[in-house]
């Protein structure tokens, strides 16, 4: 790592996450000053333009890639048109123990005097809550599901390769061509499309201006720079910014800088969930890398340094702050940009190239939370590649996570994508499958599979409040067979899926109408050709997901009930309900039986795993294939971010021996500590689910460091991954830290400020995790010593 990168990295790590009011004020200023008769898309595009023309240009000393979303490193803008923070929210953000954001006094002032008075009553969040019905609210408040879009815009998409062969000027040409083609005779939406296209054009031009403003600043800095080397650098950077984003990039540096402008554009336009993501970086950049090396304009070292500088930019951008339930379901600074390397090319051939290995070096050396990174492993990829990734995994910061390209392609093709689009896809966020550059795949919220079972056991009521929120499918004692019980559960799942999907459809339409994203629409095919906004179904493919949480816990619950009540008849349903109600106080021996003497998911035990399959089918049948309002389809995936902790906190004790409030299992991982057969048992259980019918599953595998100490251990890790993928497993990630280290870190957080652990689908600083999550990870890790 060069001295420059070391400094940039340290500055990024040390910067305080803070709230900036710059965007909120510019936006407010724009709307206060502009009384336009323009359509909503055009007005929003003009607002975007206003922000990019007026926001401060931030160029940090020594930087190679420029552009910040806020006025400084880690200064996070707000998006009052989506979610308006109250003064109370800001105070909480400033003072909360975990994941705080510093809120300067000046921000409190401008919020009080300007932002809140203007936006109150006009926000998307208020529109949403005004339209959602009581059954939705009751389920939401009970913790049956969460809602991603109540504080953040839909996003969940990944850049394809468009920008690497089209400058914004070329894109403007495309927009104009699309306008020309509008058919005012036969297309009743032609006018709306014209408005949308006009909006797109404004945003494309705005990004060019933004690039030019950077070039101006760089030239101004160069004029006063006394260090001749830096002066040359600044001038070279200015040249880059004069070229991109207006024109298509010609060099490696230009390609990176172009992406970064686009990234800043997307996250300035809105606060889309999962920021934005360069996706298949080794594929996109390789032609520039190769050409640069060939004509001598680039060296491997400089490419590496540029990539490292690029990495720092992601780390400068913590996620926009979340509050309330949404903060609990995703309590992290990470904003889920997930760099993909490896996999296959559009023609299906092995995509690993020299740059793949350079990027892997960068991942290892930078050791940053953001961007997160993953390797796509196809059966066509060489062993050396997977082995290289395993070596980084061994260092224990949870990256890269490992994905099965061949499974991802099957998933996408099953959903109806063209094979090339499928091969150009990958995973983003935590583990979500998507066709990069062509698909809008919206995660709509987590779905508490365990809580719904609790409601089933209580005849439709939430036992925590006594409120009837579900269907009255019968009392627990009335089910004479396990199948009866499952059928009742399936009805409840269907019921809540209906409520959730109805809510989603309302929210989706509110975004389509009030919060279009013309800038993002420039990037995703075929929004321009369709003349339709990304948020209104303009993308080539549109998919909505509902993410099931608690599969492992629920499997163990159902197995326990089947085993003890229906098969062995060791306990009656009444006894179990009594024990749950008492949180096992006075029922300790029963709890020992549940924890230690009952088959568990994660051990390749068909008795238990059969329930996992049934839960999967019930959830799948309730959601998969239903239409979205954008002309797309609903699908399921199984991942939690940190929601398993929140969902656990609203769920009473459960018949697998879990006590009230404890976290649920995450993704498709077994309950923490329940897997006693080692990693092959875990992956075999997990592979019994049909991953191909999902859009992503998350499997967290603990590994104590001693399993990876030797070459042979490392090789076996690769074999384990390959075996799981032969069984169509979607994703696996490894936490390689000893429990002793974690416990030490909990005692002395100050000594472990840089300790990064795998949480669920992403890595995070151990110190930033809630104590519950810390304990859960310790439990999970501790148990790894088999």
């Amino acid at each position: 790592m060069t001295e420059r990168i070391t400094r940039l990295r340290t500055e990024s790590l040390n910067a305080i996450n803070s709230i900036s009011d710059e965007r909120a004020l510019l936006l407010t200023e724009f709307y206060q000053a502009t009384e336009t008769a323009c359509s909503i898309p055009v007005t929003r595009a003009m607002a975007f333009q206003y922000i990019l023309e007026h926001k401060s240009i931030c160029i940090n000393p020594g930087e190679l890639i420029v552009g910040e979303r806020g006025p400084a490193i880690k200064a996070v803008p707000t998006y009052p048109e989506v979610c308006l923070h109250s003064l109370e929210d800001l105070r909480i953000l400033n003072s909360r123990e975990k994941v705080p954001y510093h809120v300067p006094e000046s921000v409190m002032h401008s919020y009080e005097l300007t932002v809140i008075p203007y936006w109150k009553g006009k926000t998307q969040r208020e529109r949403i809550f005004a339209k959602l019905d009581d059954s939705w609210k009751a389920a939401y408040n009970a913790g049956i599901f969460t809602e991603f879009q109540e504080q953040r815009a839909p996003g969940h998409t990944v850049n394809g390769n468009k920008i690497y062969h089209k400058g914004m000027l070329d894109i403007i040409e495309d927009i104009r061509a699309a306008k020309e083609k509008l058919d005012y005779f036969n297309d009743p939406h032609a006018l709306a499309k014209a408005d949308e296209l006009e909006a797109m054009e404004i945003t494309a031009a705005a990004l060019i201006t933004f690039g030019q403003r950077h070039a101006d600043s760089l030239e101004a800095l160069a004029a006063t720079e006394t260090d001749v080397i830096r002066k040359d650098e600044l001038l070279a950077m200015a040249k880059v910014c004069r070229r991109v984003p207006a024109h298509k990039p010609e060099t490696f540096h230009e390609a990176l800088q172009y992406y970064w402008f686009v990234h800043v554009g997307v996250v300035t336009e809105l606060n889309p969930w999962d920021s934005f993501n360069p996706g298949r970086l080794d594929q996109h950049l390789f032609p520039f890398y190769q050409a640069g090396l060939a004509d001598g304009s680039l060296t491997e070292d400089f490419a590496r340094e540029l990539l490292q500088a690029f990495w720092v930019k992601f780390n400068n951008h913590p996620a926009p702050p979340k509050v309330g339930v949404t903060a609990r379901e995703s309590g992290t600074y990470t904003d889920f940009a997930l760099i993909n390397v490896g996999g296959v090319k559009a023609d299906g051939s092995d995509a690993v190239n020299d740059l793949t290995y350079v990027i892997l070096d960068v991942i290892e050396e930078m050791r940053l939370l953001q961007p997160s990174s993953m390797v796509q492993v196809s059966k066509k990829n060489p062993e050396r590649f997977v082995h290289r990734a395993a070596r980084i995994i061994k260092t224990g910061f949870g990256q890269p996570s490992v994905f099965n390209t061949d499974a991802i392609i099957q998933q996408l093709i099953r959903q109806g994508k063209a094979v090339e689009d499928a091969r150009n896809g990958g995973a983003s966020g935590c583990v979500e499958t998507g066709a990069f550059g062509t698909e809008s795949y919206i995660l709509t919220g987590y779905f508490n599979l365990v809580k719904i079972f609790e409601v089933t056991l209580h005849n439709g009521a939430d036992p925590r409040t006594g409120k009837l929120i579900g269907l009255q499918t019968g009392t627990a004692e009335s089910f004479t067979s396990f199948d009866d019980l499952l059928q009742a559960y399936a009805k409840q799942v269907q019921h809540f899926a209906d409520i959730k999907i109805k809510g989603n459809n309302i929210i989706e339409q509110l975004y389509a109408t009030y919060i279009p994203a013309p800038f993002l629409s420039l990037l995703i095919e075929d929004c321009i050709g369709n003349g339709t906004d990304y948020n209104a179904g303009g993308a080539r493919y549109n998919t909505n997901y509902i993410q099931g949480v608690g599969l492992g816990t629920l499997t163990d619950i159902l197995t326990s009930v089947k085993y003890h009540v229906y098969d062995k008849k060791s306990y009656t349903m009444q006894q179990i309900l009594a024990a749950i109600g008492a949180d096992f106080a006075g029922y300790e021996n029963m709890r020992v039986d549940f924890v230690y003497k009952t088959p568990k998911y994660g051990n390749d035990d068909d008795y238990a795993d059969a329930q996992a399959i049934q839960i999967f089918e019930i959830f799948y049948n309730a959601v998969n294939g239903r239409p979205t309002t954008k002309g797309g389809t609903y699908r399921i995936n199984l991942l939690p971010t940190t929601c398993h902790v929140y969902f656990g906190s609203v769920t009473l004790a459960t018949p697998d021996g879990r006590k009230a409030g404890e976290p649920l299992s995450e993704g498709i991982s077994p309950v923490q500590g329940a897997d006693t057969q080692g990693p092959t048992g875990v992956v075999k259980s997990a592979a019994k689910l049909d991953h191909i019918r999902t859009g992503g599953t998350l499997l967290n595998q603990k590994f104590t460091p001693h399993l990876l100490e030797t070459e042979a251990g490392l090789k076996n890790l690769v074999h384990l991954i390959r075996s799981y993928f032969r069984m169509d497993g979607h994703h696996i990630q490894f936490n390689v830290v000893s429990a002793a280290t974690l416990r030490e870190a909990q005692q002395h957080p100050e000594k472990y400020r840089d300790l990064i652990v795998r949480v669920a689908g992403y890595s995070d600083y151990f110190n930033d995790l809630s104590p519950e999550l810390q304990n859960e990870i310790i439990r999970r890790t501790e148990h790894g010593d088999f």
Partner: protein
Amino acid sequence: MLALRYSHSNIETTAFQLAPIRIYSLRIKYFHSFFHISFSFCLFLSLRRYLFSQLVCTETMQKDLKDITGVIFDIKRYTLHDGPGIRTTVFMKGCPMRCTWCQNPESCRMLSETVTNELPLDGAVYETEEVIGRRLAAKDLLQEILRDSLFMEQSNGGVTFSGGEPLVQSVFLTAILRLCKMQLIHTAIDTTGYGPAGNLEAVLPYTDLFLYDLKLIDTNEHRQYTGVGNESVIENLKLIARAGKFTYIRVPIVPGITDTEKNLHGIAELLAQLHVAARVDLLPFHKAAEKKYKRLHQEFPAAHIEPPTHERMEEIKSLFESYHLPAIIGGVQ
């Protein structure tokens, strides 16, 4: 010799299981007397092995193999220290030795035994009885092993039979090894080599890798620390050497007992002579088993011994290397 072999090996075999084996033992006897005058011993061995496999591999025999039962006390998956690739290690119960430093005290006796386990939950500890050792048929054991066959295939791994001393149950061991070979699974046995040559000969054709313990070269010391002399251990090692089987030699390094210069040089000299070791694994003594002894209400006889230092292990490694023997500390590369 053969009679002796069966009376020794069939501690666990019932009369019902003996039937098919008698048939083939008679046939072998027949070939034995017919050939051994005119052919060299080596040829005899290989022929006998060939005939053995031919004779026994009939459909009816397979069925009987599957029903042979044995006693195991654990099956561990994803083991790293028992041979190449991803392996499943089957721990068989019963051992003729009583090594002072034994790490598997629960393996010693053939019979099942009941121990008290502690189950911690929320700070409280609940006690439960656990029976160590279960008898199962070879076909059921095979099913357990096959659970990870995909991983074995992917990694060139396989199954390792350990113990205790797996050769104690040689009929059962032979049966399960043969069933594994029919499934193309790589097989290893982790053995002390102690016992009649016949026990070893029976498994030779079906074993791809031997993990072979050499503890003490002096038979009196061997007797002192393990309870038995080492004559058969050394003779059987020669047998393996002649058969040219892939072998890792495992030397437990127990300070004050096996780590004397005399012993280590003695072992190295023998190995250098025999050309048998693909690799020498030097296994440092450790005390992880203390808890196991407690559960069994036994004293850990090596409680007073301290593990060897890293420097000492390196010295010993060099000692073996000076005999041109590739040595590995800990036994995994």
